[in-house]
């Protein structure tokens, strides 16, 4: 039984995953900044610290109220906001010391893919990770995920959140933009930037924000922003899929909850005879279960860390982590 602790940005989560890869408990609490304001790292970390105790307690309890003792403690070591990462790492170290159980550091992005793969039973996919922290197209080569394409500036999650704030829409931006987009129908011309397998979103954000300030129609703008941003990424995915010839396409991360993005990527996968595995919406956003799932796989492959070496790594690339448990069988 592996306990996973997530606290990389706005969410504190704790979850238990058993030895057969089943999610036993998954308890999360997310900090929501006021409308028009982004995540303040200190305020987010204060929220995480205030809920940590009760979240862990709930995650370690069965329905009838008895408590479960984990065999392994996994914590999200990075990437993320320093003050937030330190909360989860502190809880992880404390539990590991008190329960005398091994401590496993987990890469938050790798964990997004691990939980999506576990649920989909995917083996060796072309993986697409879209969130506030990542917008990457990855394939597993050798022992690591290799970045085949990615954003050259801001992530898709950043784009939608930052635009949402400009438009005074409630957080998370992706959900608000998607709701508005359903009312829009006219396509406004916005910058479409694909560079090989990479995308760049900052020009699109600037153009959308300046259109907004000229009192343009918000629904049409949200519709156009979504159509343009998603089509750019989908084009890069199609290109990567043709080049890597994978037979599975995995979609993970917070923005994977978007129905329109799922529809677009699903259509490309189908077109090239690949199966499509979007992560279920309830596990798309940051959660304890992803860390527990990845921590269990890591521990089985021999990953663990001593308390004195259990650092947090705010900047940590996907392609710097050994992931020997892929391809999965």
């Amino acid at each position, binding site marked *: 039984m592996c306990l996973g602790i997530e606290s990389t940005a706005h969410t504190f989560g704790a979850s238990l995953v058993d030895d057969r890869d089943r999610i036993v408990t998954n308890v999360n609490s997310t900090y929501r900044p006021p409308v028009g304001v982004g995540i303040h790292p200190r305020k987010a970390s204060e929220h995480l610290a205030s809920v940590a105790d009760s979240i862990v307690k709930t995650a370690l309890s069965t329905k009838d109220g008895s408590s479960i003792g984990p065999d392994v403690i996994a914590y999200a070591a990075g990437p993320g906001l320093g003050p937030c990462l330190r909360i989860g790492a502190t809880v992880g170290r404390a539990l590991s010391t008190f329960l005398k159980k091994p401590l496993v550091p987990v890469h938050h992005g790798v964990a997004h893919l691990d939980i999506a793969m576990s649920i989909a039973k995917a083996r060796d996919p072309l993986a697409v990770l879209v969130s506030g922290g990542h917008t990457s197209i990855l394939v597993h080569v050798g022992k690591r995920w290799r970045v085949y394409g990615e954003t050259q500036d801001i992530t898709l999650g950043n784009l939608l959140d930052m635009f949402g704030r400009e438009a005074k829409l409630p957080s998370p931006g992706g959900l608000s933009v998607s709701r508005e987009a359903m009312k829009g129908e006219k*396509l406004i011309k916005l910058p479409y930037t694909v*560079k*090989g*397998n990479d995308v760049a979103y900052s020009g699109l954000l600037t153009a959308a924000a300046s259109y907004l300030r000229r009192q343009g129609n918000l629904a049409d703008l949200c519709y156009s922003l979504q159509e343009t941003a998603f*089509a750019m990424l989908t084009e890069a995915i*199609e290109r990567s899929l043709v080049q890597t010839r994978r037979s599975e396409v995995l979609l993970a991360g917070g923005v994977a909850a978007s129905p329109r993005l799922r529809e677009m990527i699903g259509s490309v996968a189908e077109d090239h005879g690949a199966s499509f595995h979007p992560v279920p919406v309830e596990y798309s956003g940051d959660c304890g279960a992803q860390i527990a799932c990845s921590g269990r796989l890591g521990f089985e492959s021999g990953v663990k860390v001593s308390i004195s070496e259990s650092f947090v790594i705010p900047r940590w*690339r996907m392609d710097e982590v050994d992931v020997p448990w892929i391809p999965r069988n």
Partner: protein
Amino acid sequence: MDTSKLTSTPLHRGAEADLSLATIGPWRVVIKRRVKKEYRNPSLDEQIRHDRTSSEASIIHEARTAGARVPSIVGMDIENNAIIMTHVDGTVARERLDEMGISEARKFFRSLGEQIGLLHTGGIVHGDLTTSNVIVSPSGAPFIVDFGMARRSVETEDRGVDLHLLQRSIVASHSKDPSSMMNAMIRGYELSAGKKVASSTWRKAREIARRGRYFAIR
């Protein structure tokens, strides 16, 4: 030219276009037709396909004029978003490279670098330079194809993107000594673009690679 009336056989299905083979007079030609993408909004889709088709045809022609080994444009079918160009005989580098020995591969990358330098000094950047977009002729000479993302530019930034994309495709697809392959490529690039351009472009390419997320050192 209306390509829909030509007898052709399918050759390859790419990410954004279908390629087919046909014969016009003495030439074996390739028809590159940009197909409709269901995932894209129809007006955005039409605009992208039209813009890329016309820009690709004129850029290939310019690249040929600049002395690079690329196909020759035979004609265009704007209504069907199609280009007709001469067929390049050979194998896609992505596949051929795995069969090459180290010294043959180095020689190949040196010659490829020289071709890229010719494009860049001719004011053209490719925009999607991967080993999938290079054809190795039976004599071993590289032909650069697929100018769908190409643009006219003399900016170091855009030239750097080309080298960055090529490097990443080498690292991701060919694990055999990627850094020595890139070194050979740069030496070839110097031959046609000059030392000064080569060093600034390569510096920029490394900077672009570090722009990705979460690099500890920038």
